[in-house]
């Protein structure tokens, strides 16, 4: 075995060149638009349409100033709105999913199977096709064109509840709950002080999935909001691009806006990468 090892290693080194090249080509393909937006954001209006895209230009600072002062700093309002919708929405949504998932995983009560089945069916419901009826509902409640109209529908996340349930089953032992109960802890205290810390890696994953989902959402705010000051980045940048058809000067702003909007999420993702438990999704199949 020990004699064969160097040979196989050399063989391996040779055989892995082509797979490595394929992976690097895949990585380059995904990085091309990112590289493009970085260089395009440095171009002045004239340079954008005349020089080769991947060469840096001279207009970065001017573009940044133009974007920041556009309509009285509207872009930064959109960024703040995106942060509110995604941050507040997914935070509350994760807590709701955690409580519901824990209850379904660790209690036995009449109606449990029914609740589980109905919530699971919600996973398969295309939320986007619900956006238009949701608008009529919000409209009749007088909530259309408010922060609530975008925030409230994202609080319910059936897939998050399902993942929380799976994760509670594998990470919160029934014996521990029983022991805490014998010690006189209330059920709420068991959930808050025992279950939540034990479920934390799973909850981070649920939060991130929902955060990205809400941050990337376009149709819901597009339908619900008419007041530009409440737009998130997606609808705001769409509007900039749409107006740019008439005034190409806005293209530079849309490009700068696109670059700035992807920086925080990419940074967050790279930072949180080690806390993600995406195997939860594939693992959920074996349940």
């Amino acid at each position: 075995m020990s004699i064969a090892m160097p040979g196989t290693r050399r063989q391996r080194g040779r055989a892995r060149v082509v797979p490595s090249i394929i992976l690097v080509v895949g990585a380059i393909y995904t990085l091309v638009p990112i590289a493009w937006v970085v260089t395009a954001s440095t171009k002045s209006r004239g340079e954008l349409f005349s020089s080769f895209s991947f060469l840096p230009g001279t207009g970065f600072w001017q573009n940044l100033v133009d974007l920041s002062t556009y309509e009285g700093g509207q872009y930064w309002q959109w960024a703040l709105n995106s942060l509110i919708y995604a941050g507040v929405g997914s935070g509350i949504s994760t807590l709701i999913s955690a409580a519901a998932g824990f209850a379904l995983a660790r209690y036995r009560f009449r109606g449990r199977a029914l609740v589980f089945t109905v919530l699971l069916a919600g996973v398969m419901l295309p939320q986007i096709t619900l956006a238009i009826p949701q608008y009529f509902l919000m409209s009749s409640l007088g909530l259309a064109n408010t922060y609530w109209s975008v925030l409230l529908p994202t609080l319910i996340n059936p897939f998050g509840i399902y993942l929380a349930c799976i994760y509670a089953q594998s990470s919160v032992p029934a014996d521990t709950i029983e022991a805490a109960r014998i010690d006189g802890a209330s059920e709420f205290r068991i959930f808050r002080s025992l279950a939540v810390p034990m479920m934390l890696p799973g909850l981070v994953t649920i939060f991130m999935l929902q955060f990205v989902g809400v941050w990337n959402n376009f149709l819901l705010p597009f339908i619900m909001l008419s007041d530009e000051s409440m737009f998130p980045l997606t609808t705001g940048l769409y509007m900039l691009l749409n107006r740019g058809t008439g005034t190409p000067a806005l293209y530079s702003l849309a490009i700068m806006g696109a670059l700035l909007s992807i920086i925080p999420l990419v940074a967050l993702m790279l930072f949180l990468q080690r806390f993600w438990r995406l195997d939860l999704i594939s693992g959920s199949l074996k349940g």
Partner: protein
Amino acid sequence: MGGSRLDEGETMTTAVSVRRARSAQPRVAPWAMLAPAIVLFVLFLLVPIGYAIYLSFVALRVDGGAFGVRRQVFVGFENYVTALANPEFVASLGRLALFGALSVPITLGLALLFALLLDLPGIRFGRFARTSIFLPYAVPGVIATLLWGFMYLPSTSPFNYVFRLIGLPPIDFLNEGVYGSLANIAVWSSVGFNMIILYTSLRSIPSEIYEAAKIDGANEWQIAWRIKIPLLTPSLLLTLLFSLIGTLQAYGEPTTLKSLSNSISHSFFPLMKVYRDAFGTDNISSAAAASVVLALGTLFVSLALLRLLQRRTFEETR
């Protein structure tokens, strides 16, 4: 699936303690914990569905000549017949099918290829490739379309700039090639997420399985084809499910690209047609009926795939 671990735990203890544990099960607490989820589920999922179904069966009719009042009447399946027979809607479904036939197989094929390559021992730049390919997951579809859209646009396209330099005719990304261009955006956005799902389930396969095959002289290609891909089937079906649901709901990308392309109409994809009916032409009944058709279509696809999935896992455990 719920509570299976609880059962195991209980069988290990004595019968007496089982009875005590059951009697100690609180009744109010689980409902209190479920209450927010149930209330929101009813309000923002069940009620809108019910309302959409109601709207799809009624229509506004004007009674009594010129001074007539508009009132809602029950019209049965008339809205469905109108929606499904509408040539614009049928054409939008056809365009969606063409787009899906391009984007879904390419996305899943590349995701599977990358996942299998990442799982090979001794791969170089694996971490770099994995992170880079996953990165577009953090980029909203609208922004992804904006980035690619400018790279397609004749006046700013770096590809056509190079083609011009070397004397090749430019590619018309936004008109003739619009399906390919849309599919490319979809592939770019979703290949990484699917790759990670497949890769994490590959990592969960115990390596002893491969050792036996290697002793028998199997090479990596045979191991991938005969062992890894069959074991990946449940995850592949899951990614197929996500991709199909995503395709049926395509909206943001074509709507954004429409700003740059003349080849994308207001009713290019079904959901765009639904949106136009509801807000553009004020034909709410038709929009509701088309919404219900789309939702049922998605549900049907999901259930069919889940049935397949259950049968697979059942056969494997047998």
